[in-house]
């Protein structure tokens, strides 16, 4: 049986809301590719940051719903007031539920949801743009990422780290221009291992979906390396490469 995901014909739309596109499809493909692991994880709480049309959170809810033994509670946030309404309509059209909220990243959830979220998914505004376009509101907020497309991503990562439970996973879509290996290095410093689970090049952009999970070994390894060798900068570049090549098997859970 083909796993169920959101039906593009049932996704609601609005002129000020980003429609599902290659990046959204890549992220859902990543969730599908990792579906058996997701079902085994038995997540209790999931969160999408920047839900836009609702295509991704609806797909996630549908994927998880197929495991009848588990029950999952999904949250979805977006800074765009039109987007949260569109997400709500998309969820309804598919007969699934998520709690949709209008906020910047997860600002009103950070305190209480800290350490409770098992799955965080993010398709961030990743397009490199002038800094003043970031947070301009409306549909621009869906893509404007500032320098290297990193302005919002760099704010999201510490939030995801705070919200994720011990066993929690983060799936994040990135563009090659976002320097994904550097992102993996940043997360490694926080004790996360990472793995690219979907890679896709279109005519316009090269997309990766990276999965992050807490790996106690990576933290230990970093401390040891820091103690034994050279400056943090040289370690940083080495670890960035490591996160792409050396840990592909660490996720065979």
């Amino acid at each position, binding site marked *: 049986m083909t796993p169920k995901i959101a039906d593009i014909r049932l996704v609601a739309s609005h002129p000020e809301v980003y429609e599902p596109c290659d990046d959204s499809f890549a992220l859902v493909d990543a969730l599908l590719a990792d579906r058996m692991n997701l079902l085994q994880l038995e997540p*209790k709480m999931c969160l999408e940051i920047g839900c836009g049309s609702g295509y991704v959170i609806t797909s996630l809810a549908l994927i998880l719903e197929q495991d009848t033994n*588990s*029950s*999952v*509670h999904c*949250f979805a946030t977006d*800074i765009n*007031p039109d987007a*949260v*309404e569109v997400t*709500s309509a998309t969820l309804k059209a598919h007969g699934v*539920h998520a*709690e*949709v*909220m*209008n*906020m*910047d990243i997860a*600002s*009103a*959830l*950070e*305190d*209480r*949801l800290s350490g*409770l979220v098992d799955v965080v998914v993010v398709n961030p505004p990743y397009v490199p743009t002038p800094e003043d376009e970031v947070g301009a509101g409306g549909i621009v907020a869906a893509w404007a990422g500032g320098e290297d497309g990193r302005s919002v991503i760099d704010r999201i990562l510490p939030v995801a780290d705070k919200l994720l439970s011990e066993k929690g996973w983060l799936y994040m879509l990135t563009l090659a221009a976002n320097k994904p290996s550097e992102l993996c290095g940043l997360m490694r410093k926080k004790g996360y291992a990472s793995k690219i689970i979907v890679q896709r090049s279109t005519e316009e952009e090269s997309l990766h979906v990276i999965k992050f999970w807490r790996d106690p070994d990576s933290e230990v390894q970093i401390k040891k390396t820091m103690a034994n060798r050279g400056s943090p900068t040289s370690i940083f570049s080495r670890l960035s490469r490591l996160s792409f090549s050396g840990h592909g098997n660490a996720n065979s859970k």
Partner: protein
Amino acid sequence: MRLLTHNMLSSNIKGVTDGFPLKIEAGKVVEKEVDMNTDFLKNIFTKIEWKPFVEAAKTLGYSELPEDVDPSLLDSQDFLTKFHHALLEIHLEEGALVCPETGRKFPVSKGIPNMLLHEDEV
């Protein structure tokens, strides 16, 4: 908006030190039936701030929850049914969430809380 969500939201206006729990101004309240999952309820029970939860349920017109709880209640089918109903089936559709410190109102419309801050609140 479910009461589970209310239990997870705080006011994060700049300078506010204790933005939890948000007070509720109830306009329209609706009920939507969902299947009960005992494992989920047992898992989430420890994460719920109980007193604010009971207060919130009362504000939305449901006063069947016990004031005090302990984990042994999770063996009671009667308790689980009430907990499930209050946590997941009662929705605040229209109304507002009010910051306990500043009184700032966050509107809830079509079941969606608007927690966006103004520039001078960030």
